[in-house]
């Protein structure tokens, strides 16, 4: 096999893997803090991405300002989601399935709203470092992809420190694991849950501005990203943000190598078959078992 093609497929697979991982990171963060599987995580990315598009195209903001603002729009969407929809459902004793249905419904509503307001056009966001590429050997690496990988790793490490070392992160974890116990220690459990969703929204918004230059932003991108992110998070271990990235990169690499080594027509079949084998062998995900030690 052509070595250059193999290396190129690895680079592409890792890049795609970090895209899946970024969405999975947000999913894992929300699951860790609320025990809710958020089916609209990809739509937080859509909200962030479309906010960046509007700020750049309609208001002509500088790229960096638009990107920062878009990330916070994602965070605000998460905040509002918890406050206006998740909290009332919790008050009425919503089950795990009802949260899944709620977030899935909101995902469709967000997609329809973007279609109605912005239209069906795809929008290409400018990449960090433009559309430039670095050529190593004969392998092309997009400069923006390098930024995406670096930022995703930084976010993953920051979340690890946040949930493991900071008082706020530990409070959010406590609120998720034992709400009544957390209340007795003075933790404001409802606020922690709202903050968890805001954090998930922030990570989702960040995913939106980072994937926008690679895959373009369009109204129904959210659900596809959620599905890939969900697969990444499950593969890595849903309660572990680091697992989401490891799972995402594994999935991205499997897809990419399946194209080169087997056939592009069987990409999903090969990747998903290997995922099934992994999940049977390691039902808690790639990093799931280690996380639970002592927990």
């Amino acid at each position: 096999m052509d070595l250059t093609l193999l290396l190129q497929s690895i680079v592409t697979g890792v890049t795609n893997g970090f895209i899946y991982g970024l969405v999975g990171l947000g999913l894992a963060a929300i699951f860790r803090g609320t025990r809710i599987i958020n089916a609209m995580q990809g739509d937080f990315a859509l909200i962030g991405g479309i906010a960046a598009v509007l700020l750049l195209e309609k208001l002509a903001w500088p790229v960096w300002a638009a990107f920062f603002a878009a990330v916070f729009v994602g965070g605000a969407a998460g905040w509002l989601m918890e406050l206006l929809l998740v909290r009332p459902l919790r008050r009425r004793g919503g089950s795990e399935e009802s949260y899944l249905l709620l977030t899935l419904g909101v995902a469709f509503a967000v997609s329809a709203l973007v279609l109605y307001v912005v239209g069906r056009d795809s929008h290409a966001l400018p990449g960090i470092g433009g559309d430039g590429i670095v050529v190593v050997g004969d392998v092309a690496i997009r400069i923006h992809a390098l930024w995406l990988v670096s930022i995703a790793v930084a976010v993953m490490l920051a979340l690890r420190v946040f949930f493991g070392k900071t008082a706020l992160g530990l409070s959010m974890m406590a609120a998720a694991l034992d709400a009544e116990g957390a209340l007795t220690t003075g933790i404001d459990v409802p606020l922690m849950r709202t903050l968890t969703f805001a954090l998930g929204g922030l990570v989702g918004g960040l995913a939106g501005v980072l994937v926008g230059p690679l895959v373009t932003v369009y109204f129904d991108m959210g659900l596809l990203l959620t599905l890939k992110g969900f697969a990444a998070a499950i593969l890595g271990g849903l309660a572990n943000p680091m697992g989401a990235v490891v799972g995402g990169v594994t999935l991205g690499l499997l897809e990419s190598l399946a194209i080169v080594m087997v056939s592009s027509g069987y990409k999903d079949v090969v990747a998903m078959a290997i995922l099934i084998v992994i999940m049977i062998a390691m039902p808690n995900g790639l990093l799931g078992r280690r996380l639970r030690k002592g927990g």
Partner: protein
Amino acid sequence: MSRNFIRRSSRVLLWALVSVGAAGAAAQQADGPPIKVGAVLSLTGPGAGLGGPERNGIQLAEKRINERGGIRGRPLRIIIEDDGSKADIAKSKAEALIHGEKVVALLGPSLTASTGAVATVTHSLGMPQLCMTGLGPVIESSYKSLFHMLPPQPLNARAMLEYIGKGLKAKKLGVLHDSGYGQLVMTHIQNLHKEYGVEIVATEKFEVGATDVSTQAAKVRAASPDVVGVIATSPVPFRNARQMRITQPIVSAVGSSSYEYVKGMGDFADEIVFAEFIVSEDPLPHQKEFVELFQKEKGSLPKTYDAAGWDAVHVLAQALEKAGPDAGSEAIAAAIRASRYRGVVAQYNFSAADMTGIELESYTYSKLIKGRYTRLPFKAGK
């Protein structure tokens, strides 16, 4: 004096009333019961990129025909339904329009599978159906009231190969295509490429809606083709092909040519050739009126699918004018079959075996240069 004044005033008033009445009649010549026509289009779902433009063209034609007095003095009323890009919904919407609204003809659907589903209904009734697809499964050839506003996929494949083989004189072709529209065209490229002395050195497929096809693009590049065909209903493969440093000419098909995709391509919307039918930046004489009207009404430039909607309504209007709106389904279908129509898309001949009669010579070739379509001098079939 006062009697004269009253007389003069009465005359002025009478003249004014007559003038206002005449003006009203001129502005609204079409009256009487409306002629109801149904349209089933993909306005949501994966086919929305086709159905949306088709609706634009249909509505513009309806407005234009009614402004010009309708058909035999009666206004045209087109009832548009969304099939959600699903064949079963298309069929039930068509049945509701036929039996509930009592339409005299159907326009659409936008997708091949939906066209086949609706055609089983219209065929049994002999009702004219002007669909926005090319000839699909073989059984469609036996449906005598089904007419196609777009060319069959073998012709789209041939139009691409004409430019690749004769225009570029390329010998080695690599193709990047999706599993929907791209697969349909690719099947015929595989049947026809030898006629043009073209060898296919790489074929890479990806699913419709894929967000990244860089690895497939890298695989096509590794095969060192002279030219790369990209056939998809998305801007993603065009971006990825250039990002993976495919510097060879890219040739694409009519279904990939849309302003929406050009926007999504961003800076990569450059040096891409399309075998299509309308270059609105530089329209042919018979396309000018439509392009100008479309731009005035919609504020944007039309492409092939907008024009197909416009043409379908005009073909039907011509048949209704000839046969009469109340002549019955079979007489209207017979009038369409007998008609030759110089449309915006192409010269139609609905008695042809493929029920459209579009010829290779109707294709026009455009090249995207920095996000703008430019007409190429190349002519197919020469």
